[in-house]
């Protein structure tokens, strides 16, 4: 009886309100709804946040870099690793679930969130081995044509799960013992390379079905002991630009059967070395192919263990001349990414103030604006 009488009462009250509305123009009754995601721009930023203090509750924050307005989020769960598809239409997430939240049976999934609607588009179970890693670029990666998704595994033994993106099924698990990070090739979408602990790269080439692969190990291309490469590679065609702990650039081509070094040079001169300037951060550099620019987060007085320090400065190099052409304030950057534009904007993530800083890149690199705090334990930016 309670229900019926209340409906009458509510109905009466609403009728009264409606009468009032006509008489004196109060605010009209409103309808609740769900917002439509805004049309993406090149300045839309995706920030992957591990949330270490609440490890099962990872997210990707979606922010408009022009207004720094918060647009929404994707839930990524326990050590979710993330990558935009090459066409930016989906955010790919590999994550781990337990049937009882923190316990029970483990299962892993690859999930695709629609960047147009922010809704979960599709999901598929994958081998329960996905690398529970901080969000480094290349822990998960689409092929350049988005036909394949490559997912780093660690049990801690390394392997790579291959997913046919169109058929949306797992086709293979490729053992890559002692190697880490997927580096897709541009010229051959069924090929990727991976960095190995002995200083070699292993190049994996899948067959057409993606269910078997050949592997070829390069010569030793870097010294993993004395001058390790940061795993954050910036791709231009088939070439990946890496920087090393000691401040050397190495350009490695992954287009062929076997990876090879194309070029190598140093970011630091004798004076820089004396002051201890070295690269540091998580996503610590960015490359823009058209304008031939390399941006690297640097800190001075570097010492054993400072290689993840926030940037004191961001150094700008001309890839043609291999010369430093500018030093800009570092904004405590621990992650940075360029917009995919002919005249790019650089976005840095300040690891101390936990906010985005926008830099114009021309005529020279310059911080121009910063947003409010976003994220708690974030380390990877992607631009739409």
């Amino acid at each position, binding site marked *: 009886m*309670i*229900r*019926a009488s*209340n*409906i009458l*009462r*509510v*109905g009466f*009250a*609403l009728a*009264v*309100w*409606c*009468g*009032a*509305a006509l008489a*004196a123009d*109060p*605010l*009209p*009754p*409103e*309808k*609740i*709804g*769900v*917002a*439509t*995601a805004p049309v993406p721009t090149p300045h839309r930023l995706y920030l992957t946040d591990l949330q270490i203090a609440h490890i099962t*509750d990872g*997210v990707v924050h*979606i922010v408009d870099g022009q207004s720094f307005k*918060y*647009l*929404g*989020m*994707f*839930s990524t769960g326990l050590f979710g690793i993330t990558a935009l598809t090459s066409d930016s239409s989906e955010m790919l997430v590999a994550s781990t679930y337990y049937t009882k939240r923190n316990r029970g049976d483990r299962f892993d999934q690859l999930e695709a*969130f629609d960047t147009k*609607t*922010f*809704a*979960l588009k599709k999901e598929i179970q994958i081998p329960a081995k996905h690398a529970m890693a901080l969000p480094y670029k290349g822990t998960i990666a689409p092929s350049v044509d988005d036909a394949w998704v490559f997912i780093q595994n660690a049990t801690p033994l390394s392997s790579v799960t291959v997913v046919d993106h169109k058929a949306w099924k797992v086709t293979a698990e490729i053992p890559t013992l002692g190697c880490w990070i997927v580096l897709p090739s541009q010229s051959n979408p069924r090929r990727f390379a991976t960095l190995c602990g002995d200083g070699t790269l292993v190049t994996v080439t899948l067959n057409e079905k993606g269910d078997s692969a050949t592997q070829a190990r390069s010569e030793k291309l870097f010294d993993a002991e004395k001058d390790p490469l940061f795993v954050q590679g910036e791709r231009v065609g088939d070439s990946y630009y890496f920087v090393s702990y000691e401040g050397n650039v190495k350009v490695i081509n992954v287009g062929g059967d076997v990876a090879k070094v194309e070029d190598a040079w140093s970011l630091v001169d004798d004076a820089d070395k004396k002051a201890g300037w070295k690269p540091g951060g998580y996503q610590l550099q960015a490359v823009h192919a058209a304008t031939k620019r390399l941006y690297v987060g640097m800190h001075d007085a570097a010492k054993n263990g400072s290689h993840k320090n926030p940037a004191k400065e961001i150094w700008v190099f001309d890839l043609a001349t291999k010369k430093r052409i500018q030093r800009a304030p570092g904004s405590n950057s621990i992650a940075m990414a360029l917009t995919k534009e002919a005249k790019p904007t650089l976005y840095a993530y300040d690891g101390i103030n936990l906010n985005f800083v926008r830099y114009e890149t021309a005529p020279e690199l310059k911080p121009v604006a910063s947003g409010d*705090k976003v994220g708690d334990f974030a380390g990877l930016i992607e631009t739409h």
Partner: protein
Amino acid sequence: MKWFDEFFERQARAVAQKTSRRSALTKISRALVGTAFLLPVLPFARVAQAAHGGGAAPDAKLDPMNDTHCEYWRYCSLDGFLCTCCGGSVTKCPPGSQASSVTWIGTCHNPDDGRDYIVSYNDCCGIASCGRCFCNANEGERPGYRLSVHNDVNWCMGNESSIYHCTVSVVLGVSGGAG
């Protein structure tokens, strides 16, 4: 006015489901003096805010017409994250979330037109906590035995996913027809 009819029916059902009294619709007058809420950055500021709210001097930055601040007039009984800071709006849930099927209700004074309005606080559900712009206001709030005016429960409770994300503030109408 089809949307309005549907809206009316849905709200009436929702209200009927969760209260055994007409209390939800009772006009509760709003004390305007000293309602200067801080804008908290962290969740625990809910209490800091509540503490400072008591007798704090009005602050020029605290604009009752700014819908990303706790002191926005509609938020007088809102306990949660503002959807306006989470990708939604005052009345719209952020993309990818779902509006709650049941709600609690407040009565808030709109300084712009001098009227008191019934406001429905719908939680938005199904994605991880937004964690931004936490507010905790309690005008007219009552304990759980008056559930329809209680804000210390998860109003995503009736949804397919009851994961709480943020809260919107939807005007249902003028309070008690007094407007």
